[in-house]
């Protein structure tokens, strides 16, 4: 501390301990003494004593008119204050100047003390920024006490709800709540008192004129300095426009979906009728190729016979493909009414479909136990089993008689129907693929349209079930359907 010889030690210590920047000027505005803090702040040292204060501390530049007021403080002893920004350190000080009185009560110079108010200033700036945000916000921002009484009300709230601040301050926020939402509001206040945040909800509120508003409301508890909930902040936004846009969008989506359904139906009908119309000329082709063989077979040379047979076979294959495609379309799209279907009846249907083949191939067919009822579409299930049986009969090694076993197994909530054969089997990498449309593993040897298993899978799916296979090459296949028991 740089202090004059006239000061006592105690005084000096007090001066220093306060860590207050302070400077003592004489009546001519010369620096008589100053605290270490002041010296540090303005870079003053011993050499600066008795210099003119303005020269010794050139950074001391408070607002205009300060010199005059300092003069007044010196001559009248009155205290004057002014803010000072020290640009170098970024600090703001409140400078207080008081006239210095001697023991005799004579005014002789002045004492300047500097209080750092940087924090206060920043806080005030934050506060006024926040206030400006609240004030200019389009959203309604309202504070409530614990009882839900309105404590503050911004212009956004005034615009949204039609109440002026004067009208609504001190009234319960429930004046904004339509009767049917009263319970919801009571619950919200309860939650806020517990300190819970109430996430944004779309709800209805009333304007002063009684009209109903669609708003999104967010409520957050306000926690006081002591850490307890002292009230809540309510932010409300008009969502009529958003709701309208959403309704428009939903409407457009509905219209578009309806259009797509319509287009899809038209397309299906179109494909369907094409498939049917294709059958007619196909029948003509196959019939006349057959007639050629039947009536002129004996006189045709072998090459011509072969050609006619190829024509007949090609037409037959295409017809089978069309029939399978139409059948897939039916299984995939038609309304399937599910009801309890005895599995053994569906199995009987499948057997009838293949009776010629069963007879000519001397197939051995066993149903291992009584077959239960399942929830199914009867015709579709019959068709699915017929496809599985057809495969079991068809995919046998050359010369071997087919051997097919049907069994059931309860698996949790489902019934699994196994159709097992002793045929050529399927390598495991193809187990998924074979259920896809048009997939055939050995078309040259075994033919087929590649649609049968797609029908099986789609049919199972439409009945709330699944289909699959367990198989190894050369060791037979065990196809299964998992269905809901009835």
């Amino acid at each position, binding site marked *: 501390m740089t202090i004059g010889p006239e000061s006592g030690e105690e005084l000096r210590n007090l001066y220093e301990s306060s860590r207050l920047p302070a400077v003592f000027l004489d009546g001519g505005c010369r620096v008589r003494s100053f605290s270490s803090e002041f010296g540090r702040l303005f870079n003053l040292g011993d050499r600066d004593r008795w210099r003119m204060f303005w020269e010794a501390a050139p950074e001391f530049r408070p607002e205009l008119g300060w010199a005059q007021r300092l003069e007044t403080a010196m001559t009248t002893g009155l205290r004057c204050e002014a803010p000072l920004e020290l640009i170098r350190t970024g600090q703001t000080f409140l400078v207080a100047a008081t006239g210095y009185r001697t023991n005799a009560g004579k005014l002789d110079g002045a004492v300047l003390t500097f209080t750092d108010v940087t924090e206060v200033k920043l806080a005030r700036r934050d506060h006024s920024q926040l206030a400006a945000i609240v004030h200019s916000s389009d959203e309604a921002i309202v504070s409530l006490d614990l009882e839900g009484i309105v404590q503050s009300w911004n212009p956004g709230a005034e615009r949204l709800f039609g109440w002026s601040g004067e009208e609504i301050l001190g009234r319960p926020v429930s004046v904004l709540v339509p009767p049917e939402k009263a319970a919801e509001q009571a619950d919200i206040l309860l939650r806020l008192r517990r300190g819970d945040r109430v996430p944004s909800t779309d709800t209805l509120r009333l304007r002063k004129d009684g009209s109903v508003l669609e708003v999104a409301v967010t409520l957050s508890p306000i926690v006081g300095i002591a850490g307890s909930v002292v009230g809540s902040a309510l932010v409300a936004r008009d969502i009529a426009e958003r709701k309208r846009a959403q309704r428009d969008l939903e409407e457009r989506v509905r219209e578009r979906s309806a259009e797509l359904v319509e287009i899809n139906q038209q397309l299906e009908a179109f494909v369907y009728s094409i498939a049917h119309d294709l059958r007619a000329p196909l*029948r*003509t082709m*196959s*019939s006349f190729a*057959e*007639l050629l063989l*039947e009536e002129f077979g004996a006189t045709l040379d072998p090459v011509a016979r072969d050609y006619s047979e190829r024509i007949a076979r090609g037409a*037959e294959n295409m*017809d089978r493909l069309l029939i399978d495609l*139409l059948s897939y379309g039916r299984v995939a799209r038609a309304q399937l009414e599910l009801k309890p279907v005895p599995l053994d009846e569906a199995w009987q249907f499948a057997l009838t479909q293949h009776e010629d083949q069963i007879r000519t191939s001397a197939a051995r067919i066993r149903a291992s136990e009584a077959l239960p009822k399942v929830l199914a579409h009867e015709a579709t299930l019959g068709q699915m089993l017929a496809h599985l049986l057809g495969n079991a009969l068809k995919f046998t090694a050359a010369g071997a008689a087919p051997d097919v076993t049907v069994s059931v197994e309860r698996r949790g909530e489902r019934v699994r129907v196994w159709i097992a054969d002793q045929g050529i089997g399927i390598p495991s990498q193809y187990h998924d693929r074979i259920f896809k449309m048009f997939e055939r593993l050995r078309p040259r040897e075994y033919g087929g349209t590649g649609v049968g298993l797609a029908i099986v899978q789609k049919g199972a799916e439409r009945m709330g079930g699944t289909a699959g296979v367990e198989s190894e090459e050369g060791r037979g296949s065990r196809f299964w359907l998992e269905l809901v028991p009835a």
Partner: protein
Amino acid sequence: MPTLLLVEDSEDDVFLMQRAFLKAQLNHPLKITTDGSEAMAILADESQPLPALVLLDLNLPIHSGLDILRWIRAQPRLKDLPVYVYSASIRTQDAERAKEAGATEYLVKPAGTDELVKMAARLKALLG
């Protein structure tokens, strides 16, 4: 021997049907028309005896098979006439509609010539 009336616009199908009838020895005289209006005119002519049965294709120009069938069932004189609707369509709803409109039976045009002969034989058995 009463006649059979075949309403069919496809020449190929007429040919195949005639041949199948021959093979099945279904020897009733066959009256053929390719046109729905003509079929209705034939059936409306009360001076002529009714055919033993009508084989009616579904897919006909102008008047569909179903239109003709409905017209037939609306005539008191024809309401018990056996009408076999036959079509290449395996669509279940075609069969259902034909039944609803009063078809005696719905027959799917078979793919093979042998099958067609079998169908003709069935008709012969029905006629006795």
